[in-house]
């Protein structure tokens, strides 16, 4: 029942696709992290947890 896809094909796919996925994902994450307009959002976020008031905004 497992002969629909050959073992060698799957192994080949595993070896190549994983690498491609790694590279693409790295690029996407680096772009996201270093996107210039995101700078302010990140700065605000890292400062946000240090605010004094200890109650919900609503």
């Amino acid at each position, binding site marked *: 029942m*497992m*002969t629909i896809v*050959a*073992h060698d094909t799957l192994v080949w796919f595993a070896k190549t696709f*994983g690498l491609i996925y790694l590279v693409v*994902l790295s690029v996407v994450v680096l772009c996201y992290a270093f996107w210039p307009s995101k700078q302010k959002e990140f700065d605000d976020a890292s400062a946000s947890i240090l605010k004094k008031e200890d109650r919900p905004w609503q």
Partner: protein
Amino acid sequence: MFKLHYKLERRAIGLTLAIIAAASIGGIVEIAPLFTIDQTVEAAPDMRVYTPLELAGRNIYMREGCYACHSQMIRTLRDEVDRYGPYSLAVESKYDHPMLWGSKRTGPDIARLGGKYSDEWHVRHLINPRDVVPVSIMPAYGWLMDNALRTDDLSGQLAAQRAVGVPYTDEMIANAGADVYGQANPDSAAAAGVTSRYGEATTVRLFDGDPQRVTEMDALVAYLQILGKLTDAASQDTAAVETQ
């Protein structure tokens, strides 16, 4: 307000989906090909399934946590092969649901324990390991000799094993209770049924030395004596061993 809410939700769900996408790939890519491994792995036509008594013993092995200290996986390293015997093949554990390869050797590997010691040695060793190996730190398992083996659920155990892919026949499932008794009582009428269903090479013995009843000791010793003996494939495999 609704619009903001919607946007916020979308971010949180987007994050979740991104996590799933990033995290699932590695597992899929590595595990999926293994389900086609039958195409490449060595065949073992002589491979037999565990008898009900051995399967019950295996359940006891799991229940007592033996796998925490004993591995059942001899690696392809020269010293391991010299110490324990031919290295383990994938096919040897193909009926092991779940596998018991283990991850720690506080005690030695026991993948090829079967036939190495007598039944009597195992019984004494399990009742108090220090009687036979004075410096051993293995726990004593005295209750195995006291507990009668539970047999009422064995047909169900075999049926569940078949459901996950082990080729037990209807006949094996129906006779599980009788086969347990037969394998541990060679003089009984039920003994012949065991060898007819599981093969002539099946060990039919008075494992715990007590003919009165079938104990958990019978089951565990029967299991320990079959380790590495379900197939002969490993001793025929002559591939080179890696040296460090």
